[in-house]
């Protein structure tokens, strides 16, 4: 699959691994791919983000939101709301755990290394889904190569923290499709 990735897309994947390693995450997750995309300049994905108003300051706001969600066990607002429907207050649980185990304990990240930091990070299920969806999206558009813009599109399509945070900042699948393909693009169910 990777041989069809553009240089930009490969660098995003590589940078996502670095983000995961730097924060001591167990696996490479979709939010690491998003953080890596936000670091890009001059790529198609970066151009699309900038066109939708994500300049330096707004990108920083996205980074903060992603980090904040990770602190809440990586749960999106939709997921936290679903749990609230069951009477489970995620912020309360996070607050209590952090009281005993320190800030960021529920993020699954380990800054002190050693515990699960040996070896190369593997891609988690969510991140694999992002890559697979990017491939399908490229094929659906008849694009021969998978660029970082396909990774971005993919992140907006899969439910989770990246899609939610991006939508909060005006970056939706529809908006991206308009910029990248000049139309609504493939059907959402595709």
């Amino acid at each position, binding site marked *: 699959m990777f041989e069809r990735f553009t240089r930009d897309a490969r660098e995003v994947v590589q940078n996502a691994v670095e983000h995961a390693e730097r924060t001591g995450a167990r696996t490479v997750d979709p939010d690491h791919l998003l953080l890596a995309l936000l670091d890009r300049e001059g790529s198609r994905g970066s151009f699309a983000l900038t066109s939708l108003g994500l300049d330096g300051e707004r990108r920083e706001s996205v980074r903060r939101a992603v980090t904040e969600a990770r602190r809440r*066990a*990586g*749960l999106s607002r*939709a*997921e*936290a*709301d*679903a*749990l*609230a*429907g*069951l*009477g*489970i207050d*995620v912020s309360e*649980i996070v607050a209590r*755990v952090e009281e005993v*185990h320190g800030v960021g*304990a*529920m*993020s*699954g990240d*380990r800054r002190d290394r050693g*515990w*699960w930091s*040996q*070896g190369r990070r593997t891609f988690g299920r969510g991140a694999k889904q992002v890559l697979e969806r990017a491939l399908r999206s490229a094929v659906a558009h008849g694009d021969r190569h998978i660029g970082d813009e396909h990774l971005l599109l993919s992140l907006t399509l899969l439910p989770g923290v990246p899609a939610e945070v991006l939508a909060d900042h005006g970056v939706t699948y529809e908006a991206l499709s308009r910029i990248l393909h000049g139309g609504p693009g493939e059907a959402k169910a595709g």
Partner: protein
Amino acid sequence: MTEATDLAERAGDRDPRVGLRAVAALRRLLEQLEAVQVRSARNQGWSWQEIAAELGVSRQAVHKKYGRH
């Protein structure tokens, strides 16, 4: 207030999607809680066997999941 109403409606929602999403979210919450507690126990010198016994799983299961490779 509208938020509180929304939540109240959601709690009584018959839409399976809402219930399933809650279960999936609960599972993720559980995974993180388990990791925090296992780590804490290891830091305090607990053996894999002792941790497994408390979690109600086999020693192999917990070691495979959290042990070093």
